[in-house]
């Protein structure tokens, strides 16, 4: 087996690095995280002519200056031992800016290859490259690519294969900063050489000398280099005394841009320079002072419309599919064999996980829409337009997109905060994000609102819930900014990349990457919670009841058994099948009765039907009563009863208490749990009987309190886990969970007590 080569992929943000990475590695990718930071690490594998290659995709950076976590990572990765070659991706339509990073990478003196990507854009712009001259200048082969088009990396693959066979003979030069600075660099490098640091033998001391003279923080963190600091400072002083540089700390950057200007003048020519590109024209409207905001609002509205309307049919399919699955398991699995496992799987697992997966289309559509906005370049414009407004609340432009994502699912939304460089702004955004009313709270509102509010107020109430979330989030952000996260923010610098037409492939990839997280949640937390809740709802089983329900039900059934003549009366309005069933069992199900059209019934038929309805109702009442008695006996019932005194001041009885506790794992659980408690079988947010039960048992004020509590408490365990990971602190996650719970409790307490005192919505309407 031959050697496996390790190649690092480096380049500016938005240079098309990811498309080159995808084109080279295809599906063989591994995504992870750099330890301790929130920068994504990605590596992939591929083969060229039998040579195994591991490709490491580094974060996009403008420089190796370690002024951001990304730059620090790139610095660490590139100075590690074992990198055989660096692929430096360059947006060749903007060579001057892109080659800046190249000048620094060259100083590592590791074999390098330049990828002049977006060569189609460069051609359109009229840029002509003297490739042999540039190859000589940087001592590295250059491949021209179009990463976004299939087959666009052919030249790269060919040249890469040739380079790998000849790694020793690379000619990466020492780029000159001008005689004066070069002398100073040599002096510092000599000091570093004298230290003979074992771990950095593979990198020229000149690289570190330059970094020390830039007072680069990643380099200053290397303890072995400390003895050379004084010399670096000495040389800076010397250089300013001879007026070679001024005391700006950016003179190296100055000179690098000078080098590039020199190289570009000789080797790059521009034939038809178009000063104003189409992208600029679009931007004149999109980021316009007047139109920017309305356009932005329209785009966000379109995104929500797309997410909720277009996903609807798919949600129905999934819902149907899980119903079918549960039914087929039930019918294929005899009731006698392992009855507990059977009901655990059908009523617990399939119903629980299915209830979450129903929202997968919503989530995927939302992420698809977001990927369009990101890949097209609009997201950066949205951040630009919203920055001012967000800043008033202690957030910033880049906070906006994650907050909007939060309406879909808080988990990927929290991960999306990674684009916020300012640590303080990022923390604030993460902390308030769970207040964005996510898709999982929707079923709770959808159950409660129609139960307590008249049709004309229902849409308004839904809107009110979302608005309360947004207002509380903004106020909380403002408070945090003025207290725990006080002080000046970091420098804000954001590129607005040119508008591009997104490729379907990249949209689907990005949708899938994020959707996977939601699926994982369904497969882990929801699955676990469903099982635990099922067990808590079922055990211990009550065997002795306060009365003999079976006997009483039998009594009612016997008393109302349908006779021959009654069946004859009903025969004309029943189907043959229904009639046969009725003859067989002597009863007619409530479902069948409701299916019979009320029109054109004669008096006799009406009378028989009314009797059946009455009998069915008393059977159902007895069954409910037995169910409730069994429920109170279970773990859930006992926990609910035990905690009832704590929750009764906010208007919750023991049933709402158990449901709320279950919902701490995931909000979706609230609806199914309440359904089980009210013994309505498999409840979902469309369950009318459950709504009737709620309306009969609770006041509208209590209904509102349920929604408020649901909105303000932590959405689900997955959100908590992702907060822990993104802030890299258990303390933060626990503070967040306890804080939100306290906020939810006291806000609901205030509303319930005030409502009760003022007598608002305290009458049961059902």
């Amino acid at each position: 087996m031959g050697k496996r080569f390790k190649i690092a992929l480096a380049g500016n943000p938005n240079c098309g690095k990811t498309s080159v990475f995808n084109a080279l590695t295809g599906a063989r990718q591994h995504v992870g995280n750099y330890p301790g930071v929130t920068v994504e690490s990605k590596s992939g594998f591929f083969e060229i002519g039998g040579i195994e290659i591991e490709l490491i995709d580094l974060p996009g950076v403008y420089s190796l200056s370690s002024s951001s976590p990304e730059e620090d990572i790139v610095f660490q990765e590139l100075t590690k031992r074992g990198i055989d070659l660096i692929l430096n991706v360059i947006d060749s339509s903007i060579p001057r800016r892109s080659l800046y990073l190249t000048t620094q990478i060259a100083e590592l003196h590791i074999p390098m290859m330049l990828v002049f990507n977006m060569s189609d854009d460069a051609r359109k712009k009229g840029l002509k490259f003297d490739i042999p001259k540039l190859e000589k200048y940087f001592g590295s082969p250059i491949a021209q690519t179009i990463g976004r088009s299939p087959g666009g990396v052919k030249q790269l693959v060919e040249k890469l294969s040739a380079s790998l066979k000849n790694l020793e003979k690379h000619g990466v030069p020492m780029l000159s900063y001008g005689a004066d600075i070069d002398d100073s660099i040599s002096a510092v490098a000599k000091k570093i050489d004298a230290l003979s640091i074992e771990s950095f033998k593979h990198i020229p001391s000149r690289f570190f000398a330059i970094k020390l003279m830039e007072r680069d923080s990643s380099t200053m963190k290397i303890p072995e280099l400390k003895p050379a600091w004084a010399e670096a400072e000495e040389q800076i002083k010397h250089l300013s005394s001879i007026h070679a540089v001024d005391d700006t700390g950016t003179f190296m950057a100055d000179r690098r841009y000078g080098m590039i200007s020199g190289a570009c003048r000789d080797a790059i020519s521009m034939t038809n320079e178009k000063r104003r590109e189409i992208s600029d024209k679009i931007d004149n409207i999109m980021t316009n002072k007047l139109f920017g905001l309305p356009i932005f609002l329209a785009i966000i509205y379109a995104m929500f419309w797309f997410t909720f309307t277009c996903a609807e049919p798919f949600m129905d399919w999934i819902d149907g599919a899980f119903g079918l699955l549960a039914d087929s398991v039930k019918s294929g699995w005899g009731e006698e064999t392992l009855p507990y496992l059977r009901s655990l799987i059908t009523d617990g697992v399939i119903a629980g996980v299915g209830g979450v997966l129903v929202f997968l289309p919503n989530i995927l559509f939302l992420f698809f829409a977001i990927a369009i906005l990101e890949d097209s370049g609009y997201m950066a414009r949205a951040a630009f337009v919203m920055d001012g407004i967000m800043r008033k609340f202690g957030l910033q432009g880049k906070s906006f997109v994650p907050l909007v994502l939060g309406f879909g699912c808080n988990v990927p939304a929290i991960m999306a905060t990674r684009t916020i460089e300012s640590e303080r702004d990022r923390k604030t955004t993460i902390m308030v994000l769970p207040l964005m009313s996510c898709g999982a709270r929707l079923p709770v509102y959808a159950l409660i609102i129609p139960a307590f509010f008249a049709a004309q107020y229902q849409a308004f109430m839904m809107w009110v819930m979302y608005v309360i979330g947004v207002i509380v989030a903004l106020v909380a952000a403002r408070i945090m900014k003025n207290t725990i996260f006080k002080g000046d923010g970091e420098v804000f610098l954001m590129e607005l990349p040119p508008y591009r037409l997104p490729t379907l492939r990249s949209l689907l990839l990005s949708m899938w990457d994020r959707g996977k997280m939601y699926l994982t949640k369904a497969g882990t937390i929801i699955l676990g919670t469903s099982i635990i809740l099922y067990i808590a709802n079922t055990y211990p089983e009550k065997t002795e009841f306060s009365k003999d329900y079976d006997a009483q039900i039998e009594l009612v059934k016997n008393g109302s058994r349908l006779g021959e003549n009654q069946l004859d009366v009903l025969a004309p309005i029943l189907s043959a099948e229904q009639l046969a069933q009725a003859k067989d069992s002597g009863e007619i199900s409530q479902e069948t009765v409701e299916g019979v059209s009320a029109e054109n019934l004669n008096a006799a038929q009406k009378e028989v039907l009314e009797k059946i309805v009455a009998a069915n109702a008393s059977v159902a009442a007895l069954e409910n009563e037995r169910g409730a008695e069994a429920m109170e006996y279970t773990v859930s019932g006992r926990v609910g009863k035990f905690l009832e005194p704590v929750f009764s001041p906010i208007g919750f009885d023991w049933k709402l208490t158990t449901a709320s506790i279950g919902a701490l794992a995931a909000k979706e659980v609230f609806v199914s749990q309440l359904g089980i408690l009210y013994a309505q079988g498999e409840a979902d947010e469309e369950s009318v009987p459950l709504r009737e039960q709620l309306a009969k048992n609770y006041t509208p004020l209590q209904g509102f309190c349920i929604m408020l509590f649901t909105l303000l408490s932590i959405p689900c365990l997955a959100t908590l886990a992702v907060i822990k990971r993104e802030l890299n602190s258990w303390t933060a996650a626990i503070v967040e969970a306890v804080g939100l719970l306290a906020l939810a409790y006291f806000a609901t307490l205030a509303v319930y007590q005030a409502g009760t005192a003022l007598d608002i919505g305290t009458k049961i309407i059902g």
Partner: protein
Amino acid sequence: MKPASEKNAKHNITLADLPVGASATVVKIIPRSRGEKKFADIGLVPGTELILESRALFGGLIRVKVMETSMALHSADARNILMRRG
């Protein structure tokens, strides 16, 4: 003829003061100002020509075209970048 003071001011404005659509050349970044290195890395070094493309509605964000790339930064930071109009 314009008064000397106005002429002088024209050569000594900061990036934050540029009108929308104007182009100008970077003269100097105030030493040890916030983010000087970050700005230098994206090409805001003496001699670079840039265009002020637009200003956001609130909050003082400005959009600058530098090295053929649109960059957004805050006026507060832009005040540390001294410019000369062409």
